[in-house]
């Protein structure tokens, strides 16, 4: 299994990879979920609405516990990351998911006689995880400027307090912000990609599947919670 996603075909120079395809399927599932919940929405909730409400309530209240009154703009992002990554991670456990092969027109030339998998877990593509990491980090910085002011935001990284000692602290702080791109993206990518390989090696041994499902859930949760924590820290006024 190669690290980079396989290109199925190209549309106007845009390479449609198997992970892009799965990302689109995840989008469709989310839209269907929204439609279903909206259709069944009532004051007396049904099962689906109850589930959606309890998930939302959990993220809302845990964000509120940590972020306080900033919950209103933080929790939608946190919850969106969770739902999006969770569905993207769990979709690969649909039986036969990676077994369907696709034959690109240059498959034979590229040494892919058996074709390439039509679907592949979206998070096993670094483009996917890096995109989420970029959104998470940029979003937290955007809100940091918006809610603490540009002066306070810059002061976080450039400060002459304690005879210039804080200049060093600011630099470390700044570096850690860049490291977030890598930590966010590679954590998710590494877990899911490794899981894919582990499943391939163990020939879809069911205990492994259950474990990987758990990993998929945990990674979605971790990504969401870290986003929440970082955004909360960056939007804190007194620092």
């Amino acid at each position: 299994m190669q690290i980079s996603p396989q290109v199925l075909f190209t549309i106007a120079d845009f390479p449609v990879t198997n992970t892009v395809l799965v990302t689109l399927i995840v989008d469709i599932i989310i839209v269907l979920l929204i439609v279903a919940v909206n259709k069944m929405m009532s004051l007396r909730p049904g099962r689906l609405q109850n589930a959606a409400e309890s998930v939302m309530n959990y993220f809302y209240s845990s964000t509120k516990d940590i972020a306080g009154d900033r919950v209103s703009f933080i929790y939608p992002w946190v919850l969106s990351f969770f739902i999006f990554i969770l569905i993207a991670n769990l979709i690969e456990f649909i039986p036969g998911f990676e077994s369907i092969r696709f034959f690109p027109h240059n498959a034979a030339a590229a040494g892919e006689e058996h074709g390439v998998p039509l679907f592949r877990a979206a998070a096993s593509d670094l483009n996917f995880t890096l995109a989420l990491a970029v959104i998470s980090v940029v979003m937290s910085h955007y809100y940091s400027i918006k809610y603490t002011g540009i002066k306070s935001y810059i002061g976080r990284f450039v400060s002459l307090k304690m005879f210039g000692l804080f200049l060093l602290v600011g630099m470390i702080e700044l570096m850690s912000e860049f490291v977030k791109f890598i930590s966010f993206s590679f954590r998710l990518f590494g877990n899911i990609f490794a899981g894919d390989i582990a499943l391939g090696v163990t020939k879809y041994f069911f205990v492994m599947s259950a474990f990987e499902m758990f990993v998929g859930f945990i990674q979605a949760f971790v990504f969401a919670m870290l986003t929440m924590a970082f955004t909360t820290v960056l939007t804190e006024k007194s620092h």
Partner: protein
Amino acid sequence: MEIFKIFGLEKSLLFFQIVNFLIVAFILKKFLYNPLMKMLDERKNKIDKGLKDAEDARISLENAAQERQKILSAAKADADALAASSKVSLEETKEKLTAEAKNRSQQIIDEAKQKADAEFESMNKRIGEMSVEIAGKVVSQTLAGLFTDDEKLKITARALDRIKKGGYEKSAN
């Protein structure tokens, strides 16, 4: 860079994923979180209102129960008082009636006694008169041949006088 190629990083794919997620997040917020939040708030308000209404109903029910108890105890007190007073008046009536009956019977007895006394008196008188008359007649019959008219008159007068003086008992014997 070589590493980007190994991981399959590509500007267009990265851009696609970023835009894709932003759209998904926007849709989720607008069409899932907001309506659900609204629904939750609405339900919360409804439940609060329901609880408040239930509390109000409970309080008014309690008040009603208290009122009922009050009315009941008042009614019981009234009934007790009424029963007591009626007992007293009954007793009084009984006593009064008894006394009246006693009085009346006494009166009747007295009257009867008086009547009997009067009757007895008049009877006595009559008997006396009758016996005088009879004695007069007998004496006049007996003495008709023995005495002269003058003596007769004297004797009769004397006898009459004696009878009158001695009473009817003596002469009757």
